[in-house]
């Protein structure tokens, strides 16, 4: 029995150690409520369109002649709020990390269309913020119980492709970028709501027992992990987090 348990836990342990050792840099906060609060505040901040979309619309001249009307999120570009809420915590974090990675790639592509240096500087700030958010996701993933579990699938977001098809003309490309950023802000709003729910369950579990909330999350994660054989394996690539910060 014990040997069986060992065989079950050993691969997870090894994978967990690998996962933890990959970003061998600054240490993460080990305070779950503090980290959750940081994630919440980041999501709340990043959902505001004045942090990115407004800048893009203005720089691309889409704020005239009612063009804004056409800047609506393309359905399926980002996971919906319901879809996010259905995910276990671990899968949610992984989804978030992946999606934000794709947003970063897309922003790099959009950067080429932004002529003003001042706007570029702002865009760099946005990208840095997203990288900071991904950093916190990484830290939160370490704090979740059973952080070594890496076998759960990450739902793919078909619409969040790095760049639009090259056949689009400039206007269509701009409009597509606008729609993408619109979806990004909506996605961040949904993410903030999910984190708020995490906070509520934390405060509920605090009233009952200190780690109940975490355990509950872990249970959800394990439950969803039962379907792992049915789904393709997708793993976080912490190496993609590395990179020089933008000015």
């Amino acid at each position, binding site marked *: 029995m014990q040997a069986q348990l060992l065989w079950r836990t050993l691969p997870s342990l090894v994978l967990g150690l690998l996962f933890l050792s990959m*970003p061998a*840099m*600054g*240490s*993460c*906060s080990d305070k779950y409520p503090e980290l959750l*609060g*940081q*994630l919440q*505040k*980041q999501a709340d*901040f990043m959902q505001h369109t004045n942090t990115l979309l407004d800048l893009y619309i203005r720089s691309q001249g889409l704020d005239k002649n009612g063009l804004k009307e056409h800047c609506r999120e393309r359905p399926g570009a980002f996971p919906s709020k319901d879809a996010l809420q259905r995910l276990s915590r671990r899968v949610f974090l992984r989804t978030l990390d992946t999606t934000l990675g794709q947003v970063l790639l897309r922003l790099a592509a959009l950067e080429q269309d932004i002529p003003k240096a001042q706007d570029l500087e702002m865009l*760099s*700030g946005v990208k*840095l*913020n997203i*990288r*900071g*958010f*991904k*950093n*916190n996701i*990484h*830290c939160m993933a370490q704090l979740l119980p059973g952080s070594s579990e890496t076998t759960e699938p990450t739902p793919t977001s078909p619409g969040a492709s790095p760049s639009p098809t090259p056949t689009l003309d400039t206007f269509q490309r701009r409009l597509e970028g606008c729609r993408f950023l619109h979806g990004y802000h909506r996605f961040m709003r949904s993410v903030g709501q999910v984190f708020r729910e995490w906070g509520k369950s934390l405060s509920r579990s605090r009233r009952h027992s200190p780690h109940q909330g975490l355990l509950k999350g872990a249970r959800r994660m394990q439950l969803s992990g039962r379907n792992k054989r049915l789904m393709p394996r997708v793993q976080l690539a*912490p190496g993609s*987090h*590395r*990179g*020089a*910060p*933008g*000015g």
Partner: protein
Amino acid sequence: MLTLKIWIVQALFIFFTTESVGELLDPCGYIKPESPIVQLGSNFTAVCVLKEKCMDYFHVNANYIFWKTNHVTIPKEQYTIINKTASSVTFTDISLLNIQLTCNIRTFGQIDQNVYGIRIISGLPPEKPTNLSCIVNEGKKMMCQWDPGRETYLETNFTLKSEWATEKFADCKTKRDTPTSCTVDYSPVYFVNIEVWVEAENALGKVTSDHINFDPVDKVKPSPPHNLSVSNSEELSSILKLTWINSSIQGFIGLKYNIQYRTRDASTWSQIPPEDTASTRYSFTVQDLKPFTEYVFRIRCMKEDGKGFWSDWSEEASGITYEDRPSKAPSFWYKIEPSHTHGYRSVQLIWKTLPPFEANGKILDYEVTLTRWKSRLQNYTVNDTKWTVNITNDRYIATLTARNLVGKSNAAVLTIPAYDFQGNLAESKCYLITVTPVYADGPGSTESIKAYLKQAPPSKGPTVRTKKVGKNEAVLEWDQLPVDVQNGFIRNYTIFYRTIIGNETAVNVDSSHTEYTLSSLTSDTLYMVRMAAYTDEGGKDGPEFTFTTPKFAQGEIEAIVVPVCLAFLLTTLLGVLFCFNKRDLIKKHIWPNVPDPSKSHIAQWSPHTPPRHNFNSKDQMYSDGNFTDVSVVEIEAANDKKPFPEDLKSLDLFKKEKISTEGHSSGIGGSSCMSSSRPSISSSDENESAQNTSGTVQYSTVVHSGYRHQVPSVQVFSRSESTQPLLDSEERPEDLQLVDNIDSSVGNLPRQQYFKQNCSQHETSPDISHFERSKQVSSVNEEDFVRLKQQISDISQPYGSGQMKMFQEISVADAFGPRTEGQVERFETVGMEAAIDEGMPKSYLPQTVRRGGYMPQ
């Protein structure tokens, strides 16, 4: 032209000379190390190696080498000849920062020639940077600073390093002019913890500071609130409302504030209590300000939770509180000038403007009223600070109020006396004379004095009374005389007091007092006291007052009675304790231990019958504390019915009675020999008595008894635990039969004789019969008895079982243990009838007599 030629020639000469000298100056040797950097205080060794060519040329070797530092020859003791070509020099504890070291040789015995020279640089390795702290000025990039430690005397580079858990940031290199701080080149990312540390490095080493990990939002120094504005309120003259615009950082964090204010001409700032401004806000109303006063405000903010730094102070803003009605009336006075018109005079009223803190606004005008005796009020509005009016020679009352936008001040009142005022003063009347000096710029301070035209003795003396009367002292008090009866200045009081028979004593008391304590009084004495008040012209006695001093001082009686009572109680307690401790001795001397036949009983033992103390069911049944004396009641009943609770109650009642009656019967010799004849009752006292009488003779009687309607298969043995010596008659079957007869026929003569015979053996007064003494000691009266009987009949009637009847019999018999003969007869007869009716076999009938008996279980 000539100059140019000369210059060119010189330049060519220098060029060629330099070329040739380059060869000529090829050094004869070299020093290792070439450019050393040495730690201060350490040792250093340099080696000079001569070249072979040079050695041959100058005919020298390493022995010819000598060292110089800063042109001073080093003593040869520091040299070491390594080999023919090399010589070293060693320095211990280097203290100079910059040393020029040269290797020299002496050629041809007298010419010193420099072979090679180096420069030794000394310094210290960097210390670990401490006190690393960072600040994020809002809108700017993060700047960190630290304490670099000691001076190294060397070029030391500081590098600020920072990273996230997933990302490393570019190093921040310090600038030469700011080696202890560095501003990173990336924008701070709030809500992401960053790790920061400093590396210090120079030629002698590299050290790293402690790492600090923080969220940049906790290091923010916000921009100060801007657009601070101040507005007043028409409703409230004591408030000003501040409004401002917060910096954009409030989108990320909550803010708290410091608000300071001062009046325009003040230099020190007052601060709003921080707890009132501890959360993000955009306005604040400052209260408790002075009306119509200009205040200057400034504000700063920081992160709500106190992490981070205060912003700089905002730009100052000022505002004026709204007006309030003048808080004080202007003081005014008058000047009277003769008038040309007969019967009139010219009066000029003059006043000063109110100071701002009293005017509470801009004074618009003044309102003057003049009132002549019993005439109408006349109002005048004046814009100036003086006003002249012609009035009659009558007495006038003038009032003055100042008015501003909000309202009027209170009125100042001034009396303008009549022109012909002569001062018709009366004697022995107190007058208050007030003098107000009038200067050019207004009235001075007013002085008043009381005065009499002529004094007289008071028309009435003070009335004295006692405030507190003690055994030897009395506190007297009185009221000051009204001004109307004083007739002058009261200079002093005199208190006269005396007893009925004693002389009068007088005590002088200052006029300022209204209380005096008479001391050294005699207790329990009647005193008469009166008091006189004196002016300069004489005195007047007041009414006489009597009081009696108490016999005892307060608490004196308690002080005597309480200790006496305590002593008495203590003595009684000690006596009781002594008696209790020596009760055996007392009992031995007064009540010798005489066996009490009444305590004897028939113990029961059977091999198949549980021991008596094992009758737990009965013990439980009668668990009431009142049944401690009766632990076992053997009842033979026709069926197995358990007694009802009501039955137990009646039994309890009887038990109580038994206790009382037994108490009476426990006299010398135990007068209740009869009680032992009741075969169906056993008492828990029996066990105790059996133990207490250990050593005495145990009586055994073997009786036949059934258990619960069963015919005993074996013989049942009962035993008397009486300490009475064994009587021969008891062992005789005929005597036992006689006892049996007693049960069924009380009053039987032989039985009486039998018991008399038994009891008389231990009686101290053998001539007094048992029954006679029983009558004497029994306290049960007839009424109690009848009442109990009635209760029993009430209880037993509804049930009507034989068992119940048996209970009654037992209870009554038990309760009236030492009873009169008649009573015993009546109740026992009833009991026997019940037993017969139920067809129960009689228990405890003596069957066999065995000598020695059995010890009770």
